[in-house]
């Protein structure tokens, strides 16, 4: 069932803007510790907004890469677990170019959601 607008993204942005611009400054005046916590919450809402927009495609790209890299089928969670196992056991290491390309792409997609300003 399609929801009416605002979309989830639009609603999250509206909530975050309200909390940042109106609620947080009022809290800063009455209780700076709560003002700080509110900014943490606003930051998390921004993460959710980016996740809602970007994660579906990022997840499907990650799953395709993992199937190819590991040469088998499975869910994202199963294949990630298998990759982690192979990395701990030393079956794969940083000399594997396809592995490194996969980790780089996955990490780039994660940071684009969690903190795009990180450098």
């Amino acid at each position, binding site marked *: 069932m399609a929801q009416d607008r605002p979309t989830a993204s639009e609603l999250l942005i509206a909530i975050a803007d309200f909390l940042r611009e109106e609620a947080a400054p009022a809290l800063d005046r009455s209780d700076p*510790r709560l003002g700080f916590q509110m900014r*943490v919450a606003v930051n*998390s809402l921004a*993460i959710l907004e980016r996740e809602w927009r970007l994660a579906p495609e990022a997840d499907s790209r990650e799953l395709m890469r993992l199937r190819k890299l590991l040469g088998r089928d499975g869910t994202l969670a199963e294949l990630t*677990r298998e990759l982690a196992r192979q990395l*701990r056991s*030393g079956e794969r290491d940083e000399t594997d170019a396809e592995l490194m390309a996969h980790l*780089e792409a996955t990490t780039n997609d994660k*940071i684009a959601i*969690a903190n795009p300003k990180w450098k």
Partner: protein
Amino acid sequence: MTFHGGTEAETVAAGLAAAASRHLGGPATIEGLRRESGGASRQTWSFDAVVAGERHELILRRDPPTAGGREKASATSLDRPTEFGVLRAAFKAGVRAPEVLFQTGPSDGLGEAFVMRRVGGIAIARKLLRDPPYAEARQKIASQLGEIAARIHAVDTAQLPPLPHREAADQVAALRTALDSLDQPQPVFELALSWLDRRRPAPTGRPLLVHGDFRTGNYLADETGVTAILDWEGAHLGDPIEDLGWVCVKSWRFGSVDKPAGGFGSREDLWTAYRRAGGTEIDPARAHWWEMFGTVRWGVICLTQAWRHLSGSVKSMELASIGRRAVETEVDLLQLLKEAH
């Protein structure tokens, strides 16, 4: 102030008055008592004790008496009496650290606690790195950190209370154990830990005092630079280069990414000052190993903090949100791995 807060402050004030009267040579009046920021289980309070007209500016470090359901202390974190002993030895050896004065007793009702002299300065990285009053200090801090690290590592270990001994191999194993306790596989951390495991430095012949959390955010500084190194609860015996790697981890540059030494200078600034103050010559590969290790360590800490909330042991939005910072260290680790080739 809430009823609960008022009650706690009153308990702390009464306990401090009793302890200060015993240790400062006469009946003490406690003034200006206030809670500094910090966790629920490990508290820091600022206060003045006035004894016979003399004002002592002091800090209380305290683990409140255990209440039901409180989290158990971290396995890698010292208890307050041991931290007191480490601080006393470090201060005596000339390390820029707060001077500890006395421990409180069971009858004071404060839990495990000790009192130290208050030192001027701030710990807030963002202010130290950007605000005008600290412009001159910014030129000095990287070298000061090198000098202070050398002093810490020169503390006579015979003067220290019994401390855990943790070498590189133990630390890699501990991070793997921590990862195993999360139900979430972490390929980048596994890759980095395997890389570290294959290249781990030889155990130190003579383990030295390692601060264990030597970084920007954990020292006080004023217009003249660093005034005191804080947060000694991670102190242990081991490889001193661990401290020099940790202070360079990118997360501790707070945005000043081109200045690895805590956001204030180059690795060479740090190492040169370290050597001039009596520290050993730094092997860049060993320092790089510990910087990479520190980067995984911070990433795993981010996840562990989030899991404290997710497991239900503490309810905290702030802790939960730290979990999403782990990926910052994954970005940095992939970069460090490239530079290592």
